[in-house]
């Protein structure tokens, strides 16, 4: 009886670990945020928000935007466009947020599933 109890304990422990792994799988999947780059409406690149990196994005008409991803934030460091509004749009990190460069037709957006305080749309940009 006592031995049987221990077996159950062992199974329960392994089950618990299994469940925890499943939960981690589920959560990590939902919270996985990416930086999506779109040029003239077409998705051209997808980078994990969690990995520090710098990329040169080629927009329309030879325009270039320098994208920086660092510490879970993404922003345009510099750009060839005349107004530089995209650089002024600041850093983004929540799902649904975006930086837009109209002259180069470049959209940099945080995409992903689930709840990180994310939104479906942003007003006032």
């Amino acid at each position, binding site marked *: 009886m006592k*031995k049987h109890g*221990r*077996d159950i304990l*062992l*199974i329960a422990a*392994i*089950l618990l*670990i*299994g*469940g925890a*792994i*499943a*939960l981690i*799988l*589920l959560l990590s*999947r*939902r919270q996985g945020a990416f930086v999506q780059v*779109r040029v*003239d*409406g077409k998705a051209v690149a997808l980078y994990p928000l969690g990995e520090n990196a710098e990329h040169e994005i080629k927009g329309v008409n030879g325009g270039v935007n320098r994208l920086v991803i660092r510490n879970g*934030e993404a922003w345009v460091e510099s750009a060839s466009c*005349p*107004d530089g509004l995209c650089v002024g*749009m*600041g*850093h*983004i*990190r*929540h799902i*649904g*947020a975006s930086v*837009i460069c*109209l002259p180069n*037709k470049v*959209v940099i957006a945080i995409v992903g*599933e689930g709840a990180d*305080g*994310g*939104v*479906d*749309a*942003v*007003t*006032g*940009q």
Partner: protein
Amino acid sequence: MQKASGRKAFQIARRLSHLPAALISAALASAVLASVALFSACAKDTKTASAVREVFAMDTYMKLSCYGDGSEAAADEAVSEIKRIDALLSIGSESGSVRRVNESGRAAVDAETALIVEKAIELHGETGGAFDITVLPLMELWGFTSGDYRVPESSEIAAALEHIGSEKLSLSNGELSLGSAAGIDLGGIAKGYTSDRLTELFRERGISSACVSLGGNVQCLGAKPDGTPWRCGIVHPFNKDGGEYLGIVSVADKAVITSGAYERNFTDAKTGRLYHHIIDPSTGYPAETGLASVTIVSSSGILADALSTACFIMGLEGSIDYWNASGRAFDMILMRSDGGIFITPGIAGSFTSSGEVHIIDG
């Protein structure tokens, strides 16, 4: 001693003999759990057909998302509709009525433009002149149309004010006359009109769930496909860099449109003063009413678009008076320059913010 340890070893061996069975069952259970978890995450994506379009039009970036059967065709139609309205209402358009009126001072206008101008004149009267489609000469004077910003002389502003005021316009029998006004620009209402039209188009095509963002003017049809409301973030006027929102409002079947001093502005090199693009038509200078941002929530896009500008110019007290006078026909979220947030009771239950929120009680 030896006997005891021997028994213990036997017990461990006995337990270990159960281990494979326990492991297999646990692994099976985890596999089931994991696949259920993964499947539930995937199922959401495949349940509803959806279409997304991005459009660069009306000098801004637009994104349309719609869900349900026929969403692809409806989204394509919506893109065509945006291009049609852009060509119709744009100030520079060769085919539209606006340019003809502005060039000759008096011209026949198409029925759709006439309807929008009529609505604009009506809103001009209701808002005590705060919303005005004739402010174009002032926008040009300050350089907001060209990007060559400068602070005009007060004499220049006084001269421009002579030609401003929608009461100067007259519209009859499909003919629009500028009177002593210099010209009209429907830019302050065109996007709101467009999002109304798109919502209508989606509804006519049997789409029950859609969300459009026309350069930060958001309008939603229905709720999200899963039945929950759309979460609409409002850009924080002072914390754009932090990636934080002023707040998040959850809506269904509503337009959510914001005007803020932070959107377009310039600093005068001589004085270091900041000038923004929301010009008060009564003074000719950027509106200084102590507000940093105004968001209007309404089932009408055209109303929300016009009122976000008008309320910014009217200030907090003026906006509350207008809201009461209108029969509380819309909801609003105002942020004062000191960071205080004021919201109407209608959205108190669907607005979240980490800021200091006051509910307007009339």
